[in-house]
């Protein structure tokens, strides 16, 4: 099964991905399923509104979409409650975007959300990269503190924290490296060092074009690595909570 590890569904500012457009792109690229996440506005505020949109879309096409949810930890207990609610309604990943949501990734502010993610057995996807709210080593801090959680290092710190990715990946055994923005031509060398079993293909559509990113990844991965990076590894994490 091929899975796109991160797509942003919805229309807001530079985002313009509709359900039908995403399905069209997935079909063209040969992608079976895609993780869908809310647009930035709904990561920062109005989390419930964004989560409900994603969950409602996924319910209509459970064979194609894997819903992710988010809550801004600044909402405190309400954020924890929102994560529990969204996961209870079918969300299979928790998304954190420290740059957009306004904190450092390894701030204790996020611990209550991680407690919930751990209890619910959902992987946590963290957007990483400049300006420094979320770096590869901050993800490792979290991974140390929460060894039961699988952390997905979104974008692998692209671009300026690329120097840290290999060492951080080796240090965090429950850290997975997601490809979007890290560019396929750059990422593969890092995955060879950390291990192909820790790579996750994500297009970050519509910020990147889905079919283009999948075409590019196809150019650089061997057939055996393709199976793991382009679906197998993420599927393994998702199944810890149960069947999709």
């Amino acid at each position, binding site marked *: 099964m091929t899975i796109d590890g991160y797509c942003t569904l919805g229309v807001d500012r*530079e985002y313009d991905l509709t359900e039908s457009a995403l399905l069209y792109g997935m079909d063209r690229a040969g992608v079976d399923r895609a993780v869908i996440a809310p647009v930035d506005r709904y990561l920062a505020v109005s989390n419930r509104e964004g989560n409900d949109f994603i969950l409602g879309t996924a319910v209509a096409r459970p064979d194609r979409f894997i819903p992710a949810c988010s809550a801004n930890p600044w909402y405190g207990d309400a954020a924890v409650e929102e994560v529990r609610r969204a996961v209870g309604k079918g969300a299979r990943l928790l998304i954190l975007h420290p*740059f957009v949501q306004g904190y450092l990734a390894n701030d204790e502010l996020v611990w209550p959300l991680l407690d919930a993610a751990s209890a619910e057995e959902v992987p946590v996807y963290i957007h990483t*990269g*400049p*300006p*420094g709210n979320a770096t590869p080593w901050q993800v490792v801090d979290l991974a140390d503190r929460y060894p039961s959680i699988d952390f997905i290092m979104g*974008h692998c710190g*692209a*671009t*300026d924290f690329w120097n840290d990715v290999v060492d951080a990946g080796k240090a965090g055994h429950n850290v997975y490296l997601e490809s979007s*923005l890290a*560019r*396929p*031509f*750059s990422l593969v*060398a890092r995955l060879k060092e950390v291990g192909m079993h820790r790579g996750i293909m994500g297009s*970050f559509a*519509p*910020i*990147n*074009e889905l079919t*283009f990113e999948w075409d*590019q990844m196809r*150019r650089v991965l061997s057939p055996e690595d393709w199976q793991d990076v382009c679906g197998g590894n993420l599927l393994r994490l998702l199944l810890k909570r149960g069947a999709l």
Partner: protein
Amino acid sequence: MIIDCHTHWGTVWEDRDREDPARWLAMLDNHGVNRAFLLGHYNLHRSDQCRADNDRLARLTAKTPDRFIPFGTVWPQMGEDAVKEARRCLQTLGLKGLKFHPWLQGFSTADPVMSEIYDLAGALGAPVFFHDGTPCYSLPEQVAGLARRFPRTRFVLGHAGLLWSWRSALEAVRHPNVWACLCGPHMRAVEVFCQRADPGRLLWGTDFGFGFTDSIAYRLNLIYRARIDDALREQILGVNPLRLFEK
């Protein structure tokens, strides 16, 4: 005509090919890229190699003058010697501009020595090309601050803000002496730049040459797949790069 406005004569290429650009140029040929802004690499990593690498860029260009548009660098930590070296690059070696990577080279864009260099470049009509998108010395708004202070000097944001500062880069290019090289932002940001920025000050590049990896294919495909007017794409790829050097 396609001009790649962001390439490097990388340390790995120099170590292997010893000033023979044939294999490096073959990579450009594979993708139909005609010319390239050629930036150094040794001179960005090691201050003790700065002068030698500037000389090397001049020699490489002399071998294939129709392919390379070379940029030298200096280290402001060297004080007045840096200003002298900048003048040597532009007036003796014939390099066409100056490239700075404050993150790698470890200086602030606000370094007082740099002021003399910005002035010199402005007086000679040589663009100043920055790595940008990286805190704390290489942000687009910092380069925009220079553009305010040195209105005669043309500044290039070598990465148009990279992936997370592209909105700052879009603000920076409001200044008429700031140009943006679309080498780093994702496809959607590239499309927004093409909608909102002055189309006459957009460039395209690949950062090819830091290693042996072929980064040209991805970035060339990106600019062709992005939803950009064909005429504007041609302008970015082949016309604007030469306009950058017009007096």
